[in-house]
């Protein structure tokens, strides 16, 4: 079998741009899914019962659907539902954010639930409202505790962004597949793609490990 690795070099600009798009998708998804995850978790924990039920239904729906199905669904349903012609990027971002928000909500809920009740009581005994106590005392501890879980979600998400290639978002997987289709250099492009995902993913995982060690709370 012949290998022609020059195909990778020849398309390096396109691959670099696509890698940038993958990173952007990951960062943008997390930028949406962390705050929304906190909000959904808070609704599940503290809201008025009907609101709580809606939040629970949302989490259970999106946590138990294959992401690729959500991506297709967003692509076909969102334009009809909203009447907006969303770009593939916005559509992919929405699908990813819907999925990851559900996971993050569960992560935050578990983290908040793991902080013992006495912490909330100690804060409220000082005269804080429940919202202040959660924001100032419970949440900062919960976040530190769940950092490893958020980190693996982050790395999973970084790889899962490849799924939005099915709706032609020009991220790494899509662009690499396009080049593969044009050049028939299948193994070269798949290997290059694997190398980029791994080389970017591994340091991210290590970075988060470091953050976790740095900000861990000892009790």
């Amino acid at each position: 079998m012949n290998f022609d690795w020059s195909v990778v070099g020849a398309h390096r600009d396109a691959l670099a741009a696509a890698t940038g798009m993958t990173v952007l998708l990951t960062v943008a998804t997390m930028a949406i899914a962390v705050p929304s995850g906190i909000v959904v978790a808070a609704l599940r924990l503290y809201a008025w019962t009907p609101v709580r039920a809606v939040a629970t239904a949302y989490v259970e729906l999106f946590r138990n659907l294959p992401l690729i199905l959500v991506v297709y669904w967003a692509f076909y349903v969102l334009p009809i539902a909203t009447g907006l012609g969303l770009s593939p990027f916005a559509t992919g971002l929405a699908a990813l954010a819907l999925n990851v928000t559900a996971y993050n909500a569960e992560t935050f809920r578990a983290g908040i639930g793991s902080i013992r009740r006495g912490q909330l009581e100690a804060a409220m005994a000082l005269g804080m409202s429940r919202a202040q106590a959660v924001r100032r005392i419970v949440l900062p501890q919960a976040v530190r505790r769940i950092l490893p879980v958020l980190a693996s979600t982050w790395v999973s998400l970084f790889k899962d962004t490849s799924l939005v290639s099915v709706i032609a978002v020009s991220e790494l997987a899509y662009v690499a597949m396009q080049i593969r289709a044009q050049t028939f250099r299948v193994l070269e492009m798949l290997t290059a793609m694997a190398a980029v995902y791994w080389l970017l993913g591994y340091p991210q995982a290590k970075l988060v490990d470091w953050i976790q060690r740095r900000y861990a709370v000892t009790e």
Partner: protein
Amino acid sequence: MSRRAKESGARIIRYRGVVKRYGTFQALSGVDLDVHAGEVVCLIGPSGSGKSTLLRCTNALETIDGGEIEFEGARLPRDGRALRDIRRRMGMVFQSFELFPHLTALHNVAEGPRTVLHARRAEAEDRARAMLAKVGLSDKASNYPAALSGGQQQRVAIARALAMEPDVMLFDEPTSALDPETIGEVLSVMKALADEGMTMVVVTHEMNFARRVGDWVAVFDAGRIVEQGPPRQIFDAPRTERTRDFLSHLGWHGQTL
């Protein structure tokens, strides 16, 4: 100062017929008790007799199912801002300290003034430093709770409560989770507070503290106060069989240590 002298001061907390249930379990079955300004009231009795429950009802960490609790002449609000305003005037110290593990000792103490009283950072930290000095922990300001001994953590917890400038301090078995060698440092901080005239309600198993520092002692059993009076009466001449039983189980035979 005797109880009688202090009774001329204002009555700060008034419990009348307080009832608390957990499901079918009756934790409190009609408790009457008064706490006056400057007084140290000690709640003693076997585990599960309701003394901690009464303390937790005082700042509405638990809601009562019957009777009433008055703070400075007004019935305790059930929730909202009015309740929060009262909570911040009642400092609370927990058996398990409940320091905030993600904050240094200084920031644990400054947190209340910052968040609840909206003090400026410098002002809150100055006050926190003064409170840490008061409990003898000026040198531990930048330590996290995990780096402090149990006794030191409990003293930080006392400083945290004092930083709110409370009218009353509530202590829920403050030394029960401590190693024997650190109990003394916490009790002496509490004694110093009592000597300054702080009004205190103390749930405790430290009979010597109740005897020597308390102005009034209430003996709990099965959700009721079976006897209350000055420590001299409770410890030297108990009037009920239940009090005598409880004290003799603790090995108390009227001695003053």
